[in-house]
């Protein structure tokens, strides 16, 4: 079986099989009107519990402001959102991207350099850009994998490695996630400044969009970055910003002293991370496997001239014109 048909099959199987769907946790273990535990009076009246659920702060004599609320019932909403839509939609999103990418690969294969390599190298990314990129990339891997363990680990890992094993792994992931977070923030700032040039939208992008980026045949012209790459840049930046801000709120709860803000931050964090990872998978596919010769720009800093002609023809022409001008000037 060729690798391509294998992947096609894999994609179909994955798509058909239901996700190990997270069960909605609403009202786990409680029956209507029942008070959990061994408390006195094991039935309750609805009005009493409704009042509790309002979450109005009452008078208390200890300094902890939060203790004034008996039950912060938004917590339940948060839990439901986290374990419900976030987990489910996010999960489908991830699987969806994997399927799409595999399908694309199965159908289109690796995009080769037209006419093969020319042997002529053109400088594409500076050392600073490469360093910035790979630093963010390593943070992406460390934080992404530890984050996924924290969000999804509970659905499968305890069965695989046992409850203790999972507890250990989750603790490890939490520590790593917290430790690397600040480094991610620093690196995303560097990334912004090293890559923003050339990423502003321009008129040439319209042509690229009209041709669907040449993903489905045809040739789409572009300058240094095409519209897809620009999108990825701005998406990473805005998601990075949300992740950074929400991450700080989560890491330092004392900053806001507001449970509601924590819950919101958590949901924002998880949702943007899932989008980031999903689109990131597409980026990794195109950068490393899907397009022959692309990854070299980010490792050695140079690309083959024919690659540039294929994917960034307008930029290629600019570089050639520059070179000609320089040669003429000497």
């Amino acid at each position, binding site marked *: 079986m060729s690798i391509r048909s294998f992947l096609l099959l894999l994609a179909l199987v994955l798509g058909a099989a239901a996700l190990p769907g997270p069960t909605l946790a609403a009202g786990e273990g409680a029956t209507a009107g029942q008070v959990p535990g061994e408390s006195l009076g094991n039935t309750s009246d609805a009005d009493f519990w409704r009042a509790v659920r309002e979450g109005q702060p009452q008078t208390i004599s200890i300094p902890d402001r939060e203790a004034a609320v008996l039950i912060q019932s938004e917590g339940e909403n948060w839990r439901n959102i986290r374990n419900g839509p976030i987990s489910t939609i996010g999960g489908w999103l991830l699987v969806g991207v994997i399927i799409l990418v595999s399908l694309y690969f199965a159908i289109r294969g690796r995009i080769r350099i037209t006419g093969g390599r020319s042997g002529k190298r053109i400088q594409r990314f500076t050392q600073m850009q490469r360093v910035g990129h790979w630093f963010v990339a390593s943070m992406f891997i460390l934080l992404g994998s530890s984050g996924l363990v924290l969000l999804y680990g509970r659905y499968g890992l305890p069965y695989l490695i046992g409850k203790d094993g999972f507890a250990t792994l989750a603790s490890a992931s939490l520590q*790593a996630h917290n430790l690397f977070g600040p480094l991610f923030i620093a690196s995303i700032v560097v990334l912004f400044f090293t890559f923003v040039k050339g990423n502003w939208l321009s008129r040439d992008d319209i042509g690229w969009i009209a041709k669907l980026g040449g993903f489905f045949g045809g040739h789409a012209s572009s300058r240094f970055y095409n519209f897809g790459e620009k999108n990825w840049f701005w998406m990473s930046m805005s998601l990075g910003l949300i992740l950074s801000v929400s991450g700080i709120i989560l890491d330092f709860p004392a900053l806001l002293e507001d449970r509601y803000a924590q819950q919101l931050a958590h949901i924002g964090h998880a949702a943007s991370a899932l989008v980031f990872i999903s689109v990131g998978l597409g980026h990794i596919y195109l950068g490393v496997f899907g397009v022959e010769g692309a990854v070299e720009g980010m490792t050695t800093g140079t690309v083959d001239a024919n690659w540039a002609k294929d994917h960034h023809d307008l930029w290629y022409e600019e570089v050639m014109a520059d070179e000609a001008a320089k040669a003429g000037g000497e």
Partner: protein
Amino acid sequence: MSFLEFTEGPLWYVALVVFSVGVAWNIIGILAMRVRGDSAVPRKSPVAGGIKAIFLHMAPHGGFFSRTAYHVIVGYLFHLGLFALLLFGSFHVAFIKEWTGLSWTPLPRWGFIIASEVAFAGLILMWIRRWTDPITRQISDRDDHIGTGLTMLAMLTGCFALGEASDGLRAVHMLSVELLMLYFPFSRLMHAFTFIFSRYFMGAAYGKRGYVP
């Protein structure tokens, strides 16, 4: 015997012995080689030159800072971060006390976290440079990557164990540190010890001539 007992017992002893005997053997092996005699009349003291070189090469000099800034900064981030967390992390201080009886004031937790972040940033940035700079791509070999990889692994598992939540994580950290120690004497990681001789010999040879480059 539990995994933790194994990594803190027999394996730890093996690693410790291989590490210390290996390092000593390596250094003695080098120093036992013939030292080339040099009977030229000195212009200046070779010993002073040698000592000068040891300190001089701690920082860029001779107008090279701008060219080597990345490596200098990142290198220092890693090394300083590593020394801080290795010698002043509270777990490490406790571990050292357990084995030697010596102890000193550890860093507070936030200090430890910052030291780790600095060390990680430095190490990752050095490793990235190894992969992306045409010069280092040309000259790096397997040993460079294994050494860096094992160091990274030891630091990562240390970070995993930060929650002090389980014996398993502690054992995994011990194991990765032991791997690093077992590899160390046979590798370029030995530069941690040989740099002193390397600089000294150069400084002595040049210092005698009058200038320590």
